[in-house]
């Protein structure tokens, strides 16, 4: 750290996986970059998620961002440190019935059209791929190149790369106020920055007014080690409905094998939760759902359960680009449950736009200004 530094091209507030990736990309682009966190890289919501690198097809914009992100992850997979635990285990989207199997057939055509490897498994093939699943399932869509990582280690890796590229790290320093061109820290110091990128997850709401950002709480459980019992990231196709179609509390079967044999069990969604306490009835509901697909989970030794507050937007797309408040204050947040996947393309979009370069994917769908009219209305 260079305490004398008081000016920079870009200051990034929040060293989660998004902010750290943005710092790496900005520093690599030659920008004089400062990465700020009240704590340390990857210690916030980044450490609460599953770490699933997944292509999602809710919308064309979500597809573009997740597919580009996964491509960037795949390109650098071989050079990632071992502690990131990159494991290209693939995703099995499980069809519980005939109707969901019809959806699988529609999805596979779309994936292939975009050159994403995808394969339909029938009931018997699914049973061979995951012998512990109940037998009465209709089949699955196997997305081969989806992967799993340990997110906090990735955030630390990106931050360390940024530092190697010349970025200045200001960790353990809490931001009090942001105004165009200047950041005031709680300790009385300040930093002048031509551009400020707020990547602080839900805490961004404390720094900027009227952000279209809500909390969406999720629960996770991790088991002891049961190597080989789960081989792919397993998600019920019904997840797409429960995760995205409704404001009501919901759970879905979403289970992940960790490289050491531990099993992560999810998932739940609750809008506008105000605290991170475990909701025991919802947690029980979530675990019953998981046991309904993988009966052996009933007997596994559970080590820990926790919650996290995902920063969510109304349209399910993140906020990437200049804020509605001021052209020099940018946002990189609102990724809800896809921040781990989309950190790479988010960073690429932020750096390309700050540097005035061509973006790999169209940036406009993620611009925060898409909500500008309603936030203005809310102020008035």
């Amino acid at each position, binding site marked *: 750290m260079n305490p004398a530094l008081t000016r920079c091209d870009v200051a990034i507030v929040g060293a989660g996986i998004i902010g750290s990736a943005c710092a790496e990309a900005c520093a690599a682009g030659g920008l004089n970059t400062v990465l700020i966190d009240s704590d340390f890289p990857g210690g916030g919501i980044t450490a609460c998620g599953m770490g699933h690198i997944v292509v999602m097809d809710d919308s064309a914009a979500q597809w573009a961002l997740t597919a580009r992100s996964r491509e960037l992850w795949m390109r650098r997979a071989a050079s990632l440190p071992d502690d990131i635990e990159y494991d290209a285990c693939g995703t099995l989207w499980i069809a519980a019935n005939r109707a969901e199997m019809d959806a699988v057939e529609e999805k596979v055509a779309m994936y292939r059209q975009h050159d994403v490897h995808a394969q339909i498994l029938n009931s018997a093939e699914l049973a061979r791929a995951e012998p512990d699943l109940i037998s009465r399932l209709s089949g699955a869509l196997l997305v081969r190149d989806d992967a799993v990582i340990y997110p906090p280690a990735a955030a630390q890796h990106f931050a360390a790369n940024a530092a190697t590229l010349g970025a200045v790290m200001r960790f353990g320093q809490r931001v009090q106020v942001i105004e165009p061109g200047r950041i005031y820290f709680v300790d009385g110091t300040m930093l002048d920055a031509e551009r400020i990128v707020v990547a602080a997850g839900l805490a961004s709401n404390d720094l900027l007014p009227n952000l279209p950002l809500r909390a969406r709480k999720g629960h996770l459980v991790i088991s*002891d*080690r*049961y*190597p080989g019992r789960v081989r792919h990231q397993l998600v019920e196709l019904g997840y797409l409905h429960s995760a995205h179609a409704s404001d009501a509390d919901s759970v879905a079967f979403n289970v992940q094998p960790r490289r*050491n*044999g531990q099993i992560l069990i999810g998932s739940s969604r609750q809008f506008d939760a105000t605290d991170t306490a475990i909701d025991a009835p919802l947690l029980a509901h979530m675990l019953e759902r998981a046991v309904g697909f993988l009966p052996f989970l009933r*007997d*596994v*030794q559970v080590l820990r359960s926790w919650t996290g507050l995902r920063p969510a937007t109304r349209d399910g797309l993140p906020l990437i680009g200049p804020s509605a408040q001021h052209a020099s204050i940018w946002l990189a947040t609102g990724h809800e449950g896809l921040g781990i996947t989309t950190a790479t393309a988010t960073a690429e979009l932020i750096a390309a736009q700050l540097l005035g370069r061509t973006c790999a994917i169209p940036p406009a769908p993620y611009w925060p200004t898409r909500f500008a009219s309603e936030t203005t209305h809310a102020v008035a």
Partner: protein
Amino acid sequence: MRSPEYIEIFIDGRAYLLIRNSTVAAALLNAGITHWRRSVSGQPRAALCGMGVCFECRVNIDGHAHQRACQVLCTPGMRVITHVE
């Protein structure tokens, strides 16, 4: 005073005679096994707290993974497998 009752259990397929109501941890140590699990980083593990708190002494008993050896009493014919998760 009654003489102790001996039972037979199997540790990694080998038969051992021991006093009924010994803990599995005691049986393992009595069999000369000084560690029966490895941590994620490869370090040897055995009973540490001996009272069911630390979970370091986990072992597979009759097909059930992650049983605490210090908390389970030996029963006739019990099959204990070490060094599996």
